[in-house]
């Protein structure tokens, strides 16, 4: 029987060879994998996107084959002997020789380049920019399945992933490891899918389940857990650069936690990844955006905001826009785009102006580096929401444009005209670069502000003195016709609502009616208040805006009254969001010469780099659609690589942030493309389906025991020769300790919390912000909810490789340091957790250790480990039995207060628990 099968295989092999021989002309050199790396390493720094020495660049094909300064092309396809590109590699004269004043290329490199030119200098596209195709599964055919069925080959493979993994292993002379033990596998799965380890009961449930699909049942259960969303949101927070403060010098508070909750719920709902991106990039531009769509757009409102006195808003608005561009490319497209800000990409074919064409998508949002993070979604209290709903009912019959204008005014109080719009100050200033402060007789101008015939004016301001201030508004110039005279009343604060928490000044909102002026106008505002001293301000202004006209067919007075009430209402909370400028506020985008915003060049229209798409794309919504669409080669590859990295510790492309030609090559491109293709087309971008597919593979379920051979030949497990044994991240470490102790609060979402943190961490100048320890269960929430201050993140996060979140972080590079050991040994959070864990058990000594270990890891402790921990326990018990003072100090108890019956036993058990929480089994996923 076996002999016949082998014979069959030989026939098939023969036919295959025959077909291969029949295919077109053969090339021996491949541009992307062989030529491009040599160019990137040796040539492109002088002949690429930054410099074009001698008029020669190797970045684009037409440049490489085009004429150089000498008047001739440097590369003549087919004729290496006539190509100076090749000849100068051999030049003797140091002025001629290339690479210029650097070591010569190796013989092999010269040969590759020469053969490449000889074969016609065929250009090629970098692998990651090529359209995504469904690669064929290696060695997976009816034949190998039949062989497996009769036990002729291993039949190790669980799904297609494993065929790709096995094929690569075979190439490297490596092989897989046997399946992990049930408890190890369960702990790995729990930590990977929910970020939390299993409990005793959960270990038992899995152990007791002898059915064939016991593991799959666990997978399905965990994918349904609410903790699933928390775990994956915690990954996304680094990418979104989520923080609870605004960054820079002041680093004051920002309320944006609803965005974090949006991400949790998106993962929990299994929201398709393309839709997830679309909502985050352009939720505000969807046809009828919901509250959730707006909150999603806070993704790009997590940029930092500079409130320091003396800083120019436009500079930091621009910085935020640039960050949105760079983050979009790095996080969603795995492309280093930042360098294109100043010049064409040094290595990948992207042109300087394409950066700004892309920036134009983002350069028309209403945010302008304002301290209150305008524009923000106002989440109303119930009665205000009711009023808004009543107005919406009126508006429903109105044209779309009117509805939109009113929504912007009622929901967002936009479009605001911010103080930095003003110029031509006389006896007044943009105080602290934030608000307008004008003295008696002083004036300022607003140039070309869109009034558009509107007659209803809102001023958010504050009258400084005891008497009212009069503002005269003139059209055009200081001597122009008077538009109106307004009175800023002293009783303003009492008379009008004072929306709280918007910015520190707490502006009062006052409404006025002014005559209708068309289009955009220059307005001069003069301030008079005879009762103020010469060096005292008459009033300060936070912003002003024109309220839309009430449609004539609505009952104007009622509508207007309610509208003003809603506009002045104090919302329950707010979330900064993306809001596109109304037409009359549209910005033009210009190229920045050498990347400097102070040096604007040509006007740019929106577009995607030609490398990726030639189709016109006109706004953020279309951009987001292109990103999730068929044409985009990167989105799915970048996403699956990231999910893979979370599970296996390293991406298939190690540089998660860069799939360009300078990134590291994929260690298994077939596998990456297969996963990406499945994700995009089979799973319709549903993350849970992708994750299930990966964790169901035999590759994922391997034991992480490392053989001598693998340690040598695959030290970093790039070929997945074993299970991923990876150190937990700081969130998991703390959450695990809390869960084990029984302290963990499982409440989902809500405002960020402040758990126990040593004093003095937030010792920042010019800031009244305080770390105020949260009450009750909020001390023991999952780490994802810990308040994140950019200038001073929570210490455990700092010790265990999290970034600051000033900018996105694609990858936490894992380190192993003594500071981490001190953290998990001595941080009061871990000590408290150890004690609560110890208290859960009435048993002591070896019984406690055995049961404790079993509960934590689902498997019995080895004799040797037990002996070591038990000796330590005995040692501790002996010491603390004799040293009552230390015992009470450790338990933080007064001698006559609440002392347990055997305090020394509790201390000994706590210290054993502290050791258990610190052993390698705890610090790693198995």
């Amino acid at each position, binding site marked *: 029987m076996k002999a016949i099968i082998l014979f069959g295989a030989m026939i098939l092999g023969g036919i295959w060879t025959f077909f291969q021989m029949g295919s077109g002309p053969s090339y021996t050199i491949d541009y992307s994998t062989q030529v491009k790396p040599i160019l990137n390493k040796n040539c492109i720094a002088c002949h690429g996107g930054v410099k074009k020495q001698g008029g020669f660049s190797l970045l684009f094909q037409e440049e490489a084959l085009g004429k150089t300064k000498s008047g001739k092309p440097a590369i003549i396809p087919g004729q290496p002997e006539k190509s100076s590109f090749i000849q100068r590699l051999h030049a003797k004269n140091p002025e001629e020789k290339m690479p210029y004043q650097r070591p010569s290329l190796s013989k092999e490199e010269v040969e590759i380049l020469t053969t490449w030119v000889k074969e016609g200098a065929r250009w090629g596209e970098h692998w990651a920019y090529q359209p995504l195709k469904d690669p064929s599964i290696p060695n997976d055919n009816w034949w190998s399945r039949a062989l497996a069925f009769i036990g002729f080959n291993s039949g190790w493979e669980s799904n297609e992933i494993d065929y790709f993994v096995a094929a690569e292993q075979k190439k490297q002379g490596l092989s897989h490891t046997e399946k992990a033990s049930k408890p190890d596998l369960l702990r790995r799965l729990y930590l990977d899918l929910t970020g939390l380890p299993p409990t005793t009961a959960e270990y038992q449930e899995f152990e007791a389940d002898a059915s064939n699909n016991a593991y799959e049942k666990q997978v399905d259960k965990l994918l349904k857990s609410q903790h699933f969303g928390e775990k994956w949101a915690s990954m996304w927070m680094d990418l979104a650069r989520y923080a609870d403060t605004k960054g820079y010098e002041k680093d004051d508070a920002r309320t944006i936690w609803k965005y974090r909750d949006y991400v949790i719920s998106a993962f929990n709902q299994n929201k398709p990844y393309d839709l997830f991106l679309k909502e985050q990039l352009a939720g505000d531009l969807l046809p009828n955006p919901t509250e959730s769509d707006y909150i999603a757009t806070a993704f790009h409102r997590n940029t930092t905001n500079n409130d320091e006195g003396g800083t120019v808003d436009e500079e930091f608005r621009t910085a935020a826009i640039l960050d949105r561009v760079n983050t979009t490319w790095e996080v969603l497209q795995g492309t280093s785009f930042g360098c294109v800000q100043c010049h064409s990409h040094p290595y990948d074919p992207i042109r300087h102006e394409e950066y700004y064409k892309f920036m134009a998508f983002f350069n028309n949002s209403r945010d302008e580096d304002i301290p209150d993070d305008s524009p923000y979604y106002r989440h109303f209290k119930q009665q205000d929401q009711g009023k808004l709903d009543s107005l919406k009912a009126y508006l429903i019959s109105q044209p779309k444009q009117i509805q939109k204008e009113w929504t912007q005014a009622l929901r967002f109080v936009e479009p605001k005209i911010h103080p930095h719009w003003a110029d031509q100050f006389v006896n007044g200033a943009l105080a602290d670069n934030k608000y307008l402060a004008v003295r008696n007789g002083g004036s300022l101008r607003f140039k070309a502000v869109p009034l558009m015939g509107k007659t209803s004016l809102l001023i958010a301001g504050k009258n400084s003195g005891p008497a009212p201030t009069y503002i005269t508004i003139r059209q055009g110039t200081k001597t122009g016709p008077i538009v109106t005279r307004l009175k800023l009343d002293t009783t303003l604060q009492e008379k009008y609502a004072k929306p709280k928490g918007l910015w520190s000044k707490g502006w009062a909102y006052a409404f006025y009616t002014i005559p209708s002026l068309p289009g955009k106008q220059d307005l001069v505002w003069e301030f008079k208040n005879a009762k103020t001293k010469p060096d005292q301000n008459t009033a300060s202004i936070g912003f002003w805006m024109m309220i839309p006209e009430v449609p004539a067919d609505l009952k104007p007075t009622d509508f207007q009254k309610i509208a003003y009430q809603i506009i002045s209402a104090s919302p329950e909370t707010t979330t900064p969001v993306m809001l596109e400028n109304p037409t009359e506020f549209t910005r033009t985008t210009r190229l920045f010469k050498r990347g400097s915003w102070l040096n604007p060049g040509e006007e740019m229209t929106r577009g995607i780099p030609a490398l990726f798409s030639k189709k016109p794309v006109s706004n953020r919504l279309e951009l987001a659609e292109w990103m999730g669409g068929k044409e985009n080669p990167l989105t799915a590859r970048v996403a699956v690589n990231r999910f893979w990295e979370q599970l296996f510790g390293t991406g298939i492309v190690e540089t998660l942030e860069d799939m360009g030609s300078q990134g590291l090559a994929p260690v298994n491109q077939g596998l990456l493309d297969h996963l990406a293709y499945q994700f995009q087309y089979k799973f319709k971008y549903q993350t849970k389906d992708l994750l299930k597919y990966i964790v169901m593979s035999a590759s994922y379920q391997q034991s992480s025991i490392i053989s001598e051979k693998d*340690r040598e030949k695959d030290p970093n497990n790039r070929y997945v020769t074993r299970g991923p044994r990876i150190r937990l991240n700081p969130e998991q470490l703390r959450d695990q300790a809390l869960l084990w102790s029984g302290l963990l609060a499982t409440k989902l979402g809500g405002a960020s919390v402040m758990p126990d943190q040593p004093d003095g961490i937030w010792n920042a100048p010019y800031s009244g912000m305080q770390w105020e320890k949260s009450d009750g269960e909020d001390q023991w929430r999952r780490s994802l909810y810990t308040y994140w201050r950019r200038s001073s993140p929570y*210490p455990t996060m700092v010790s265990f490789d999290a970034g600051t979140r000033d900018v996105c972080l694609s990858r936490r590079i894992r*380190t192993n340091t003594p500071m981490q050991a001190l953290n998990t040994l001595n941080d009061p959070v871990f000590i408290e957790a150890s004690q609560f864990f110890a208290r859960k058990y009435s048993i002591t000594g070896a019984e406690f250790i055995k049961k404790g270990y079993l509960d934590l890891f689902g498997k019995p402790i080895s004799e040797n480990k037990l002996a070591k921990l038990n000796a330590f326990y005995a040692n501790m018990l002996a010491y603390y039995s004799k040293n009552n003072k230390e015992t009470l100090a*450790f338990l933080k108890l007064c001698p006559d207060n609440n002392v347990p019956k055997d305090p020394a036993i509790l201390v000994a058990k706590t210290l054993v628990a502290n050791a258990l929480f610190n052993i*390698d089994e705890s610090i790693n996923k198995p």
Partner: protein
Amino acid sequence: MVLASGGKNPDAGKSAWGSGFLPSVYQGVQCRSAGEPVLFIQNPDGVNADIRKASIETINSVNEETFKEFGDPETVARIAQYEMAYKMQSSVPEVMDISKEPEYIHQLYGTKPGEEAFANNCLLARKMVEQGVRFVQLFDWGWDSHGTSKSGSVDWGLHQKCLETDRAISALLIDLEQRGLLDETLVVWGGEFGRTPMQENREGKTQDYFGRDHHTDAFTMWLAGGGIKPGFSFGETDELGYATVNGKTSIYDLQATILHCLGFNHEEFTFPFQGRNFRLTDVYGKVIKPILA
């Protein structure tokens, strides 16, 4: 190692000693003057060094067993890190304790044990350098003399800051020299910007104190010790002290020079980040050769 004085941490927070685009193993560690000297270095109440030693030995012996099971080299590394943590627990408080320094040293620096002061930090810096710490950074807060308060004034506050720092910084140089350490230790003194030569009148009002605003066009830093020419000044401003008229150097030049003194060629010393090899001096900087010894 990072030490702060003046009552506040620097404005930039932890990013002032963060590792930027380098892995976090290169970030600075703050030594605190209040509470434990390094975060979590103190054992919980009631746990002494012997107990912690026993506990770390237990953890490590269990980890040795685990290494036999899984063969993961990271486990071996972790064992070493736990040992190092224990060593730090005993050596850091020792280094951070200046009370055992002789009286003449306290006289020299003007130090009072137990205080949070720039002088104490200077003495600590010397102790750390002696112990082989490679980078010590001292931050001193309270130099933002806008003239809007007494302590933030040029006439009183700045004078106080100078009194607090002058003696201590000269003491540090003298002390390093007398221990034969100055030739291999580079001391850099400076701030992130200078102050205007003219007075600041905030909001156009006459203030109760004199003050100066931020100024970036011209200001001074000094370097002493390892590799730097002594008794020499470089560069010049106009007669007002407003603009540089010759010898203008940039922060990148300073960084290139510091790296040079440490034995690095800043143009070759790179780390791959965002698709290219990044230098610590970005694409700028020239070693300021005239100031080299």
